[in-house]
């Protein structure tokens, strides 16, 4: 069982609201990721972090922002949610090495109405 947690699991919210998706891990991993998964299953890397105070954009442009103030915590924020943000958001972490597996949270399914 992976020690990485995402809350909430499901969120339905109105257009224009600000939301924060939480992700925490207790493994002491430096590297953390956010993926967006579309209905066709493909995962797109939207943000990653090498460690505290490090945030980088992934290969898919996203209107969301992230922060990394503590090693264990990597929240994702949408300042003004839109229906196009409706998706599954997956958080993951690794120890940053080359031959290392990723541990995933259970995901947050976001619906913007």
């Amino acid at each position: 069982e992976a020690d990485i947690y995402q809350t909430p699991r499901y969120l339905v919210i109105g257009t224009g609201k600000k939301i924060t998706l939480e992700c925490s891990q207790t493994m002491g991993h430096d590297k953390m990721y956010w993926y967006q998964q579309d209905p066709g299953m493909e995962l797109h890397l939207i943000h990653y972090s090498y460690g505290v105070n490090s945030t980088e954009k992934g290969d898919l442009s996203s209107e969301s922002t992230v922060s990394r103030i503590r090693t264990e915590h990597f929240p994702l924020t949408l300042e003004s949610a839109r229906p196009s943000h409706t998706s599954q958001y997956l958080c993951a972490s690794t120890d940053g090495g080359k031959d290392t597996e990723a541990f995933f949270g259970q995901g947050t399914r976001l619906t913007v109405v």
Partner: protein
Amino acid sequence: SQQGEEDPQALSIQEGENATMNCSYKTSINNLQWYRQNSGRGLVHLILIRSNEREKHSGRLRVTLDTSKKSSSLLITASRAADTASYFCATITGANNLFFGTGTRLTVIP
């Protein structure tokens, strides 16, 4: 996909049969990994094969890697209904970021 394509997109087999999924990728890699995702859940790591390895086994899983063709395959032998899930290959690029393929939906019919 930025890095990988999987084939087939969907596969339906009878319990007890073998399931084979293929993955092709685009750039040079450090290793290739396979993950499983149950419906609506996060991904779970199954197996990792390094770029200098050609084949690896773990229980009922067998993974092959052909770096000259930039391809890998995952074989699940003697499938069970509980193997029903989506399977993804993932590669690590030079920046040590994981990029995933498009996934194969496997359905094992009891």
